[in-house]
């Protein structure tokens, strides 16, 4: 793998507010709001957009199979190159990378990456998420994403001594950060005790350890170096990308012959290794100023910081409790509040890219981390088997 044929950067970001329900907008209108905001933020017009990548995960939540093709006119994609990307929860990260490929290939100067979700259109998201499992064997085990995450968390606790209190610190920090983010779905002042006393969904995961089901939309405009220079605009350069897929079977990631470990997020470690190589990052703690980690459950953030090289697996819990990953800490993680505070599944990983880009662009407002030169955004999907990683920097590398 070499250098990109053409350098590319994010020059526009658009997001809606994230809420449980947004009844006043249709799905297509919701997607349009994000698309319009991103294009305006890039100081472009819809006619300047040459190609569109649509970020849409399972359509069963909002109930229209061709949601992307329904939204095509609304997101200014009609009569343009258009494709939808879907890798489960990682969809937004994969879509951002697909948009990057449009520009990095040299075939396009601009590409809009946009998507939306209305998870609460279904009365029971976890019923839908049971359908991701094998119909012959696994579905009857009551597997869904919460029970799946609980099994993984138990393994992390057994292997690294992680405690429910470590996880509670992640929650408290995320909710506190989200108070600075006007778009966050959940936010507020939580105490460690309140988290620990919340009801169990699936041991050891409690209510506050789990992400919400959100509605909302997100978009970024990716442009070539030529467009960036013409516009003389500030840019979040896409300096490194990586993605890794693994087997669906969680048991195959726990047995003696395993290639990777379910609770180590080895897939993210490998994806980050490639992204860091491209971005010439050798010491992530020193060289990354902020991380937006797709952590739908509190324990996932502990796995994520270790996989990104920001901590060892054993130390992740202790460093979290010490404030190492807080705003003002050594490497702030999820200053936006992260996935624990907003989870519009089709674009949750794209929101991570949006928030990382906003940090590099200096546009994160109340949750801006000072002097950001490099940020990382991740996505995870399936049975924690799909991981994506994108490094954004303030200068091309």
């Amino acid at each position: 793998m070499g250098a990109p044929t053409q350098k590319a950067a994010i020059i526009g970001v658009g997001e809606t507010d994230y809420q449980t329900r947004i009844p006043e907008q249709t799905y297509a209108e919701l997607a349009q709001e994000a698309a319009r905001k991103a294009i305006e933020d890039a100081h472009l017009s819809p006619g300047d957009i040459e190609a569109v990548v649509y970020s849409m995960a399972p359509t069963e939540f909002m109930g229209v199979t061709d949601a992307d093709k329904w939204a095509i006119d609304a997101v200014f994609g009609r009569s343009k190159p258009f494709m939808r990307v879907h890798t489960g929860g990682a969809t937004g990260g994969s879509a951002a990378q697909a948009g990057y490929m449009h520009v990095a290939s040299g075939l396009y100067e601009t590409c809009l990456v946009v998507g939306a979700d209305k998870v609460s259109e279904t009365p029971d998201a976890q019923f839908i998420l049971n359908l991701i499992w094998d119909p012959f064997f696994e579905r009857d085990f009551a597997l869904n994403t919460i029970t799946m995450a609980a099994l993984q968390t138990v393994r992390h606790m057994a292997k690294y001594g992680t405690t429910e209190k470590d996880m509670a610190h992640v929650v408290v920090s995320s909710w506190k950060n989200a108070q600075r983010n006007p778009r966050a779905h959940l936010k507020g002042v939580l105490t460690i005790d309140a988290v620990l006393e919340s009801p169990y969904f699936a041991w050891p995961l409690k209510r506050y350890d789990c992400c919400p089901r959100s509605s909302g939309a997100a978009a970024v405009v990716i442009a070539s170096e030529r467009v960036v220079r013409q516009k003389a605009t500030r840019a979040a350069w896409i300096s490194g990308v990586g993605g890794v897929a693994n087997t669906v079977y969680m048991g195959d990631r726990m047995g003696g012959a395993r290639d990777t470990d379910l609770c180590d997020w080895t897939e993210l470690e490998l994806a980050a290794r490639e992204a860091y190589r491209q971005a010439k990052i050798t010491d992530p703690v020193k060289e990354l100023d902020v991380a937006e980690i797709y952590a739908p459950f509190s324990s996932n953030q502990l796995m994520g910081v270790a996989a990104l090289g920001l901590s060892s697996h054993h130390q992740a819990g202790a460093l979290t409790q010490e404030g190492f990953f807080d705003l003002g800490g050594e490497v702030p993680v999820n200053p936006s509040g992260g996935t624990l505070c907003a989870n519009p599944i089709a674009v949750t990983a794209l929101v991570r890219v949006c928030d990382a880009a906003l940090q590099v662009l200096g546009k994160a407002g109340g949750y801006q981390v000072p002097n950001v030169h490099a940020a990382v955004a991740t996505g995870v999907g399936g049975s924690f088997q799909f991981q994506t990683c994108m490094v954004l920097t303030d200068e091309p590398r």
Partner: protein
Amino acid sequence: MAPSAAIVGTACTTWLTCQDKRLEEMIFETAQAALQDAGIGRDDIDNVVLAASDELDGRSISSMLTAMPAGALLKDEVKVTDSGLHGLILGTLRILSGLYDIGMVVSWSKVSECRPSQVWRGALEPFFSRDVGAIDPLLSAAHAARYVADYGIDVSLLDAVANRMRNRPGTPDFDAAPTYLAYPLKASHFAPTVDGVAAVVIASSQAFAQRRFAHQPMWIRGMGWDTDAYYLGQRGWDGWKSLRIASRLALERAGISLSSVDVVGLEDISSFELIMGVEAIGLADQGHGAEWILDSGYSINSLANGFGGYPPFCAGLWRISRITQAMRSSGAQHALVQGRTGQGAQGHAVVVLSQKSEGGM
């Protein structure tokens, strides 16, 4: 220097309704055969692009299960949901980016285990379209009725084109009832749908400099893709505009004209769509597609005839696979291959293959 991309190995199922294998077994066998065709192993690929539909697969995030048999274990993998040919396009973009060297593209559908009409109904937005129930083939029939009226077409030409395709030598027999599904389209105007998997291995020009493959490269010299409005009434009635855009762009990028193309592989789920295709890419004038198919002497889709069994969703990549294999031993220099996506063929993708790398992207 910017890389270029070529097909170095491929495999596909042919005219198959597969009752005795699970989908993932079919995917594994086809992907494995494509690697063998390329003369490489799974370790040699650095990325995988899947093209499939959760809804046709009957499983949310179906790639959770299917990515591994497609070869994606600990590889960089992504899925598109438009068509098999869109998958090839994203795979090619990855190669052209300079960040990848050898990739696998796999697409499939196992329609023997689902009811596509139920999936198409779920594709309709709930405020207007779903109550109208305008799904394929009704949507296609609405377009066909307008086409017949606008150009004064003798509807028996739709029968004649279907019969021409169905009666090609070597094409399996399928029952084809001459009953109307929706005027002017009859059941006998449609190709029989079958299960299908297609896999293509693509490599960068740099990869060719570093290693040997089993076959000469089939260069992906041009590609274009375009999607029209969601509502049929907003697309215009003068043929498939998005296919016109996509094919023109693909040929421009390839640096060749349509007259230089030796092999054409177009969507043929029905005789009407085949007619629309030959008109949109410019083989025939508007309103004269059927006559061209019947009288020009050109054997359209001779290397990949969907009327022997049409695999929905992956048909474009299936066509690529069949045509690539055939071109290796023929004197044909250039091929133009089409795939479609969405209700009433809302979007199209076109790829131009060539024996030579000169010119093009």
